[in-house]
């Protein structure tokens, strides 16, 4: 296998990327890099600029300003090179319902110039991965929404892209299919040498990413691993049930310098690193402890602390539209 440009540096490198539609600044100059092999998530409410950014990186929209390299190729001047090296799964289906699953994949293979002698094996592999090999002769219009999305993922991988872009890959799917899709993404990072760039507005899904970037109103707010982001928000919440709550609170103050209160019938307090604190607590509190629970700040807390609103509030109008659109296309 020949060396590829993407091996030399970042899989995606973005500098000052901007996009304006008329007077609306959809993306206001973002900078970031995605390392090869990373699962990178773009998190933000609908209308934050996620899809616009992904469209520019996929060469579907021309940036108003700034530059970006995808798999080592410039998204404006080397458009075809970028296209050869990326796979795309969009929010809305882009399959031909009148063709079978196999015919859809063959169409893609021809369009991407996949060597003829490899098409059969590669197709079997990607269809096996998403569990659709047995359904390859079925017309796509008879497939459920989840099957269509799985087929799109298989198709996006058919030409062995360096970077797979997934724009809201699990929107409108049932929880089972959502977790199946995350299963494929997990498998992918082991079986294929691939970088995954995805957008989502589901907090629980962002947890699967190596790093996430929070984007709001067209600007990058913060970029880090989910763990680091949560740590940056602050402290873990520890709740204990003891034999003597009053005495426990006094001792917590005296011996650990921690202010505690009774919440939900339990002694509750916050410490920077809950897991490390608990053993010390058992060793040094001197009051019997019946149960303990440590909860991390959630990504919801992270989003809240960086943008000042919860993601659900920020998009309360948006999800409805998306759902309607998914319904309209589901026929």
């Amino acid at each position, binding site marked *: 296998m020949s060396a590829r440009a993407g091996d030399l540096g970042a899989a995606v490198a973005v500098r000052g990327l901007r996009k304006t539609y008329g007077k609306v600044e959809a993306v206001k100059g973002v900078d970031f890099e995605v390392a090869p092999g990373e699962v990178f998530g773009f998190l933000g409410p609908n209308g934050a600029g996620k899809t616009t950014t992904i469209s520019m990186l996929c060469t579907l*929209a021309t940036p108003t300003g700034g530059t970006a390299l995808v798999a080592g190729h410039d998204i404006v001047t080397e458009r075809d090179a970028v296209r050869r090296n990326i796979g795309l799964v969009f929010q809305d289906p882009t399959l031909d319902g009148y063709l079978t699953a196999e015919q859809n994949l063959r169409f893609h293979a021809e369009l991407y110039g996949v060597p003829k002698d490899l098409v059969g094996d590669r197709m079997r592999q990607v269809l096996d991965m998403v569990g659709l090999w047995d359904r390859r002769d079925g017309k796509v219009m008879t497939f459920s929404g989840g099957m269509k999305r799985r087929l799109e993922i298989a198709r996006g991988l058919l030409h*062995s892209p360096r970077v797979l872009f997934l724009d809201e890959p699990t929107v409108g799917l049932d929880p089972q299919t959502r977790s199946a899709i995350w299963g494929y993404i997990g498998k992918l990072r082991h079986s294929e040498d691939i970088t995954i760039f995805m957008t989502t507005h589901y907090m629980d899904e962002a947890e699967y990413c190596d790093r996430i970037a929070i984007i709001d109103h067209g600007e990058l707010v913060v970029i880090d691993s989910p763990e680091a982001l949560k740590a940056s928000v602050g402290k873990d919440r520890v709740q204990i049930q003891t034999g003597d709550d009053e005495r426990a609170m006094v001792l917590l103050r005296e011996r650990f310098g921690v202010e505690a209160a009774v919440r939900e019938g339990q002694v509750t307090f916050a410490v920077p690193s809950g897991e490390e604190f608990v053993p010390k607590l058992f060793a040094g509190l001197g009051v019997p402890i019946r149960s303990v629970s440590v909860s991390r700040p959630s990504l919801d807390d992270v989003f809240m602390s960086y943008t000042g609103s919860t993601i659900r509030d920020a998009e309360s109008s948006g999800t409805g539209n998306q759902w309607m659109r998914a319904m309209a296309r589901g026929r």
Partner: protein
Amino acid sequence: MTTDVVRVSVPRAGGGHDLRAVKVVLHRELLRFANDRTRIVSSLVQPVLWLFVMGTGLGTLVRGSVPGVDFRTFMYPGMISMTVIMTAMFSAGSIVWDREFGFLREMLVAPVSRGAIVVGKCLGGAVVATLQGVIILALAGLVGVPYSPGLILTLLGEMFLAAFTITAFGVTLAARMRTMQSFFGVMQMAIMPMMFLSGAMFPLAGLPSWLHVLTTVNPLTYAVDPMRRAVFGHIDVPPQVDAMLNPGVSWFGHRLPVVLELGLVAAVGAVLLAVAVAQFRRTD
């Protein structure tokens, strides 16, 4: 994962790759056509009605003035054109359908030139329309047109050329359309007058001058006339009837040769194709 991954590497863009893209877009049109029997049957209804109902009805009316020829024989090449035009426009309209249902995106993000996709689409429309025309060709015997190999080959070639140009026209229209409804609206508005003014339904001899001018500037006229000349060249018609039903197209008193007519159709097709490609090259 221990399984070996079949890794494919996608070649750089080039002529061979673009050719594969043209072929697969064309192949998809054929698959779609073959799978859609309703469409095959329904697009036959209109020309058959025109030919056997209108043709027979009008035929009894004009029998006296065109002795020695069945009026349906006159209408036959017109109905071939009508079938081809309708089918070609429907094929072009599927671009709007593809846009509505997302598949167009799959084609437009591929590392192939937009030109390859548009050419594939136009060739697909042309092949499909020609195939549909073959069904009408099979009816030749019913309206007194002989099944001569020379005539059939000529008509096939002329059908293909007309179909390609019409598909290119349709794709140009479809490039900016967002919904099937608006496409069909515009298509009706464009196609009906072009059909009426093409000589497909009535002979173009002895028309009032304003109508004559309109028929002369209508590109479809140059697609229909060669087919009629081919048909009339293979049947026995009294000269004065031939002059009335098959007058050809004249510029400044000179009757245009078939080659020039076909050349015009091809030239219009090439220009429309270029316009269509240019429209699909534009991104936002």
